[in-house]
């Protein structure tokens, strides 16, 4: 597949799909490795919701691409046959798992962002985007509740759980600036979401006696297709079957 040049919103739809898919792929590594059975099931159910959201965005992106570029893309070709530089996910989604604290802090930061985003996109003039946002937000609300409770439980828990939570925040916070950086292809001004997001994070951190880091360097690039070294490894695992046996189906 050649490098893609898509009109305005297509890249943004792909970005939304890619972030959901890549975090889902990361979270799925917990499957059968969760700290306890119930939480193993919880994180994999959240993962399934994210895959569902990714599918909806990919299906829509495929229809946009096919109608404007006369191609024959599907949700599967978009997920399995694009290269690293063509993926537009947020960097925070591709970072390797560290421990349970890292996973729940990332889920909380990301789902709280998705919550604000979907709230705004519910009012979008594009009917398909509006529908996906309306569908997704009900699930995302659950993800926020679940992850916020875990952040509080760990942050305000034992010495060790607190230590791990602090480490997770330190590692992940520099990747949250990218949530609010706009690309020319974005269908809305994401910087407008920052205040509500930060209020939510601050409240939960306060409850967990954690503090919000201030004025630190923020990474970006994912939305432009410039990734950390970790994405290539995810894709080589996720895309292996389609690369090895092109067109395989079951």
């Amino acid at each position: 597949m050649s490098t893609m040049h898509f009109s305005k919103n297509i890249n943004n739809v792909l970005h939304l799909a890619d972030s959901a898919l890549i975090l889902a792929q990361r979270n799925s590594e917990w499957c059968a490795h969760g700290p306890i059975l119930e939480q193993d099931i919880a994180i994999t159910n959240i993962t399934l919701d994210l895959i569902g959201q990714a599918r909806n965005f990919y299906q829509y992106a495929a229809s946009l691409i096919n109608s404007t570029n006369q191609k024959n893309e599907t949700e599967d070709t978009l997920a399995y046959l694009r290269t690293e530089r063509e993926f537009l996910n947020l960097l925070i989604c591709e970072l390797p798992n560290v421990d349970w604290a890292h996973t729940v802090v990332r889920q909380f930061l990301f789902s709280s962002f998705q919550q604000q985003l979907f709230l705004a996109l519910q009012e979008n003039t594009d009917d398909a985007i509006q529908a996906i946002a309306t569908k997704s937000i009900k699930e995302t609300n659950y993800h926020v509740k679940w992850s916020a409770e875990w952040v509080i439980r760990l942050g305000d828990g034992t010495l060790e759980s607190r230590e791990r939570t602090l480490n997770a925040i330190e590692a992940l916070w520099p990747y949250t600036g990218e949530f609010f950086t706009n690309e020319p292809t974005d269908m809305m001004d994401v910087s407008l979401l920052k205040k509500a997001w930060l209020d939510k994070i601050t409240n939960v951190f306060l409850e967990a006696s954690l503090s919000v880091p201030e004025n630190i360097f923020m990474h970006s690039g994912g939305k432009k297709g410039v990734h950390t070294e970790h994405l290539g490894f995810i894709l080589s695992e996720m895309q292996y079957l389609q690369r090895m046996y092109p067109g395989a189906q079951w």
Partner: protein
Amino acid sequence: MTITKEHILRLLEEVCDPEIPVLSILDLGIVRDVVLSNPIEIIITPTYSGCPAMDAIAIDIKLRLAEAGIKNTTISYVLNPAWTTDWMSERGKEKLLAYGIAPPVGLASRVNNLLFEEQTHIVCPLCKSNNTELISEFGSTSCKSLYKCNDCKEPFDHFKCH
């Protein structure tokens, strides 16, 4: 044979959710419309974005209709308005309870997501006690959470209000 919408709906009543086979797709409230066009269009909506049962349900619908001689059909999906447990029929809720799954309680619009707040008064499907407590927000599928009964001590699935 003239095919009517009622005829199709009667056949769809026999198509069940593969995860919860006591519920028909009509009980579940995921059939949004039947359009008597050519091909006949059955419009369904997913319960959750990632519900893995949707593809199986679409195939089952086509199969059931084909068995009844209605072969020219197409399944389409809508997301908006988003499915809610409010669309589950009362009969469906009774069937769920009899099957061992506590049905959703209350209206989806009333769901609040206050932290550490759990829905109370979920009735144990086994002994009908409402002295029950939440074990996990997520059960065997996205649409269910896991509860336990403090009286008969049995764990059970609860179909979340959504």
